[in-house]
């Protein structure tokens, strides 16, 4: 199971707590994790990445194992600790605005 930590507003939308667990078929990448997340929680479609282009929304960031993955290729395998469920994959709202 892949662990995903969502920002508070998306937890409210998805009616979940701070962390969700999802089944993701290998390879474990940003794309496959988000695909599985959106199947399980369809109300999140369009809120993390664009419906059509699948581009990350500008004010969101992706963190894994204390590294910023926001600008990494979305088909690049995530760290083994995320793939094994030892560490969560973070979707984080960037500090922007006031």
């Amino acid at each position, binding site marked *: 199971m892949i662990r995903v930590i969502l920002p508070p*507003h998306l937890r409210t939308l998805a009616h979940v707590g701070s962390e969700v667990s999802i089944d993701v078929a290998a390879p474990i990448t940003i794309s496959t994790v988000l695909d599985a997340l959106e199947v399980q929680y369809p*109300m999140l479609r369009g809120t993390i990445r664009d*419906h059509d282009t699948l581009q990350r*929304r500008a004010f969101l960031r992706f963190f894994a194992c204390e590294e910023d993955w926001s600008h990494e290729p979305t088909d690049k395998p995530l760290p083994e600790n995320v793939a094994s469920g030892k560490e969560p994959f973070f979707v984080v709202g960037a500090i922007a605005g006031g």
Partner: protein
Amino acid sequence: MSKVRVLVGTKKGAFILTSDGKREKWDVSGPHFAGWEMYHLKGSPVDPNRIYASQTSGWFGQIIQRSDDGGKTWHQPGTPPGETTTPPGMPKGESNKFKYDASPETGKPLTTHQWYDGTQHPWEFKRVWHLEPSLTEPDTVYAGVEDAALFRSSDGGKNWTELPGLRGHGTGPKWQPGAGGMCLHTIILDPSDPGRIYIAISAAGAFRTDDGGHTWKPINRGLKSQYIPDPAAEVGHCVHHVAMNPSRPGVLFMQKHWDVMRSDDAGDNWREISGNLPTDFGFVVDVHSHEPETIYVIPIKSDGEHFVPDGKLRVYRSRTGGNEWEALTNGLPQANCYVNILRDAMAVDSLDECGIYFGTTGGQVYASKDAGDTWNPIVRDLPAVLSVEVQTLA
């Protein structure tokens, strides 16, 4: 006994204010969708418990919410709470998908509009400014969006389809964003003619369709805007809001960037009715529900100073369809007040004695139960108010 429900969208959530027909004691519920910008909420005229809401965020984008019980509970259309699987053939999570129609069938490229620097810029969806439920079908609702376009859902908000004839009619490349973005903020459905819809865009102007949204034409003749190279151009005018009394659907009132305007021929021609207003800049305009020649505006000092003039919050009423205006001040602050009233933040009820409501950027929602003669705040300390709509319930 009659009841009134006021739907308030704010910068940080939605609030629902309810009262009986006396409009003296109010219950306040909210914040709904706390922390989100709630641009607009509006109920279906044929099913008042059906309310649509536009929930938006710079971080997470656009969400459409729907209530089927008068605002007690909400869900994203097509994705009810607790339902977390996606059955085959039933796409979910589509209710926030606003995809511009660029299909070849439209016969138009539909790709760019004018940007601030005069160059052409691609259309990019940002948010829904206004939701207008159908007058006859509770599952049909229109959405006015930024960048300016008109969408329609006929399945209760689950799926949205653009009416591309508006952007494709020819003047689109000349539209440009105002300071608040290039938004389609006003949608008026003609109760006497199902094919006729009026819309308004900042900064493009007003437009009308007579065939249910297939074809459109600009209706800006008579508008004069000194901030564009040709003050009387066909498009490019920063229309802030348009209002209509349903009993006279061919008569329209407009608050433009500057100038209060009137049309008696469904928008084909406009004439100025600013008259003795202290300033004719402003955002809101509305019409008394039973007296179609009684109209309301709230003058704002200028385009550079978006607050009421002289520190005084004054609603202006004309009982003559414009030009002759009286200040309504009883119950409103008359010193040290510097709020703004945004374009969708005034509404009227339809009780025998017409109630008028407006919300301010200071978080007050004021109500008058006597057509504007006296005012009282329903609430004083909400987040900045973006929109106010009223439902008059049996």
